[in-house]
């Protein structure tokens, strides 16, 4: 038994002075093992979506609070919660689950604007942010703020109202949580603001209809986010998250190989053996870089 462990982890005369775990055929077996596991997890996700799934702690209120916090930090006005925008955001999320897509425009050609209009929200400007597979609101907001286009929506001074949709469902065979953020500026607000300008500046020429039309055109070129009801929509707890499981297996294998490379290099250096192999330091460096990227990368996706 003792020899078994030495054989796999230490460079010995019997294993040709190279830990058996670092041999190319062993590494190929580990790659095959990983791919098999990866496929198995995906397969289970497709045939039994309820077994592997997601447990999101994101709530509508948290998303609104953190969005307003970001705006407050920049001295912008806070967004007001709008139930119509929340309804359109929820509809968008439900539509993505129902039609199995992940995009601003559905395969049938339904745009975010169509969802907003369907709830009778008359807007002069609107925008949409999408996210999926996030565990918590902090990492979700971080991802949006790190993306210039999503950040532009969050800190856009044009918007006055917000609606959030947080919906659980099965997308692409994996149980997940979709978050849709809809921003809007009601048409009435622009109209009344402009009237105020007209009333207070009687000598200035302000044309209300032109402005409204301009805003509406701008709006249709933008991106929208879906609103949702302010309660926590998903408290369903799932046993295993497939994305997290994949990450744990990857990190474990990386740490195992890096550790054996360290041991192998140290023992070889200590015994002053010469051998025809690649550079352990180079391998350790390369694997550490990839490990760092895996650890620091976010789990979820934004659109």
């Amino acid at each position, binding site marked *: 038994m003792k020899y078994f462990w030495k054989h796999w982890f230490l460079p010995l005369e019997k294993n040709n002075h190279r830990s058996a775990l670092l041999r*190319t055929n062993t*590494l*190929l077996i*580990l*790659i095959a093992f*990983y*791919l098999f596991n*990866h496929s198995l997890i995906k397969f289970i996700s497709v045939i039994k979506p309820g077994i592997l799934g997601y447990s999101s702690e994101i709530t509508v209120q948290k998303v609104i609070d953190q969005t307003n916090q970001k705006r407050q930090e920049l001295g912008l006005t806070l967004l007001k919660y709008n139930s119509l925008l929340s309804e359109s955001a929820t509809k968008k999320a439900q539509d993505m689950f129902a039609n199995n897509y992940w995009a601003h425009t559905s395969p049938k050609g339904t745009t975010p604007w169509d969802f907003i209009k369907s709830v009778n929200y008359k807007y002069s400007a609107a925008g949409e942010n999408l996210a999926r597979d996030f565990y918590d609101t902090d990492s979700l907001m971080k991802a949006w703020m*790190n*993306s*210039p286009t999503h950040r532009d929506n969050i800190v856009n001074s044009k918007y006055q109202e917000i609606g959030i949709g947080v919906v659980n469902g099965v997308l692409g065979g994996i149980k997940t949580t979709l978050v849709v953020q809809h921003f809007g500026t009601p048409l009435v607000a622009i109209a009344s603001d402009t009237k105020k300008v007209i009333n207070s500046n009687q000598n200035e020429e302000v044309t209300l209809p032109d402005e409204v039309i301009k805003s509406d055109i701008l709006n249709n070129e933008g991106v929208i986010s879906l609103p949702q009801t302010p309660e926590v929509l998903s408290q369903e707890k799932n046993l295993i998250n497939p994305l997290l499981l*994949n*990450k744990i297996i*990857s990190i474990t*294998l*990386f740490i195992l*190989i890096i550790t054996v490379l360290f041991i192998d*290099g140290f023992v070889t*250096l200590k015994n002053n053996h010469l051998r*025809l*192999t*690649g*550079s352990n*330091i*180079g*391998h350790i*460096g*390369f*694997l550490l*870089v*990839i490990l*760092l*990227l*895996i650890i*620091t*990368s976010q789990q979820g*996706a934004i659109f």
Partner: protein
Amino acid sequence: MIIPPEVKKKPFEYIFLALFFIIGICFYLFAGLSSSNRRFVVIILGAGYFFWSLYHHYHRGDLSLSIIVEYLVFILFGIVLFSGTFF
């Protein structure tokens, strides 16, 4: 601090490799890349490491098929596990 003899012999080759990795990490983390572009960065890192290994072992005079295969397998290991984690 123990500096392995192979690093002492060719310090600039290892410094170059370290700089290459650091630039790759910074680009990956701070360039605001999409997920597909991030995978592309990892593939570039793997390709760069492979070319470094060819240069390194050629100058050391021990470049052989078994060493090339070893590097390819380590790079494959890194890229497959990275891709499997996020895609």
